[in-house]
């Protein structure tokens, strides 16, 4: 399979000269099993460009089939969906997987297309769209690929995915806070505090962390949310993002072969990202895994080609 990055940014797209090398589009990763349909993870603004590339192939004449795994429905993970050209072509089949919400997923995605916000209603998209609701721990197949998922520590809950196919595995773990200081869920936290957590919360976080380590076990590639520097995390532990150190710890415990820093902060320039990558590489100089930082256009071949 091949893993290709179309959007690597968190929170909001950031056009401009300072982001030319890493790219300013929000989260979108394409997993392309050998001789099979694409599995797309997240639909940030990067998916617009993936859509154009797909239209060059079978999607252009309405014979394409794609699956989109959504980590959660925060804007930076769904904003590109209304701009995904294959959805406007009759005959294409698009399967959207996301965690169960209070209302049906189709209703959640329809809101994005409400006339107040976007000119084209979801119901007017010509492709054949199917919504699949997931809960943590779900396991299923997309063609020959096997997909599993685990819960993350993020406001309103996000999920991580693992795709096993062609004798290799990739894990997408964005967005998540570390599993130490607070449990993020449905409550809005205005002012975070770093106190001792009640034992039930501690054990819930420990279980969540164990779930993520198990999901990433021996993965060939672990893509991890590293939006924050340590200082930024101290100021905003309730925003639901990690530091490179957190990603490295999980990578070590799960014994992955390659770690990829992902979901870069919007204000981070290319030079900032270079520095963060260099500092993180120092930290893992004695480790067995390699470390890269995601940029638009990065393609990582894994397993059978």
């Amino acid at each position: 399979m091949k893993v290709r990055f179309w959007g690597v940014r968190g929170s909001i797209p950031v056009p401009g000269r300072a982001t030319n090398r890493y790219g300013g589009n929000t989260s979108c990763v394409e997993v392309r099993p050998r001789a099979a349909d694409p599995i797309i993870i997240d639909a940030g603004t990067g998916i617009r460009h993936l859509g154009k590339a797909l239209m060059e192939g079978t999607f252009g004449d309405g014979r394409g089939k794609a699956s989109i795994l959504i980590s959660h429905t925060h804007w930076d993970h769904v904003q590109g969906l209304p701009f995904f050209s294959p959805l406007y072509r009759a005959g294409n089949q698009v399967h959207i997987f996301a965690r169960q919400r209070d209302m049906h997923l189709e209703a959640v995605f329809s809101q994005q297309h409400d006339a107040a916000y976007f000119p084209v209603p979801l119901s007017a998209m010509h492709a054949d769209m199917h919504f699949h609701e997931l809960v943590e721990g779900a396991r299923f197949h997309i063609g020959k690929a096997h997909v599993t998922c685990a819960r993350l520590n993020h406001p309103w809950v996000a999920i991580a995915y693992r795709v096993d196919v062609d004798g290799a595995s990739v894990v997408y773990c964005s967005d998540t806070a570390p599993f130490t200081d607070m449990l993020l869920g449905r409550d809005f936290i205005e002012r975070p505090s770093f106190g001792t957590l009640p034992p039930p919360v501690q054990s819930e976080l420990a279980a969540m962390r164990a779930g993520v380590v198990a999901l990433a076990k021996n993965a060939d590639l672990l893509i991890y949310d590293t939006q924050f520097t340590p200082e930024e995390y101290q100021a905003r532990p309730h925003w639901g993002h990690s530091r490179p150190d957190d990603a490295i710890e999980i990578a070590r415990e799960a014994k992955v072969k390659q770690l990829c820093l992902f979901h870069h902060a919007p204000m981070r320039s290319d030079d900032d990202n270079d520095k963060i990558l260099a500092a993180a590489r120092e930290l893992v100089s004695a480790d067995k895994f390699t470390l890269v930082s995601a940029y638009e256009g990065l393609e990582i071949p894994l397993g059978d080609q």
Partner: protein
Amino acid sequence: MRIKFWGVRGSIPAPGPETNRYGGNTSCVSVHTAAGNLIIIDMGTGLMHLGNALLRTEFGKGAGRATILLSHTHWDHIQGLGFFPPVFIGGNQFTVWGPGSSPDVLEQILEGQMDPNFSPLQTLKNLSAKVDVRAALPAFEAEGVRITTREHAHGHTRALSFRVEEAGRSFVYASDVGYPESGPEPAAIAHYANADVLLHDSTYKPEDQATRRNRGFSSYEEACAAAIAAKAKRLVPFHYDQDYSDDAVDGIVAACTALLAPHGIAVTPAREGDELEI
């Protein structure tokens, strides 16, 4: 009046080297009045960058005040609100004048953007600054200047254009404008009449608009026709299609210049970071 462009792109932000010169952020323009007051027009992603700049002023201390004019609530005109640093500082005050039958309807739409499914902010109530939402009137005073509003067609919906007047000078903001096939209507021309600066939707080249007229955007030819009919002094093409590279926008600017030069109308393209004094 001093106009500054923070986001000039339509529909969706377009990062990448091919948009470096004109910029890839969505719609946001600031107007500083001669008296030093601030009017912000539209809240696309450019608003985040305006907000960062404002932190160095009284907005950084929670003592800022601005009027925000909102043309309509499509994503490319509101996405910046949750990323506008001054709204997270208590004491700052914003009055948003936008479309809608009532302030409640407009507030509900802005609230929907913060829905917990989509935003970690969960609700507008979590913004620390005071944000007062109002339905725009046909004419009103704000920040010591006179503002007139026109509602126009924009595809299947409606949007507002704004005319800001101070000390005999006028600036018109007309983005996301869908004219009938016959071109700009008399009411539109009246709203733009004799403007010192007419900032106008120039989303498409005519050949691209031909297949997408139902989307409710103008071609640069329609923008030029409006400028000529209204006897504007300067046209600012704006809201470029997300798929147009800088070179394509250069083409639009050159075409506008050729069309307007015989009429003595100047052309200044909207470009992120550029300023224009009226």
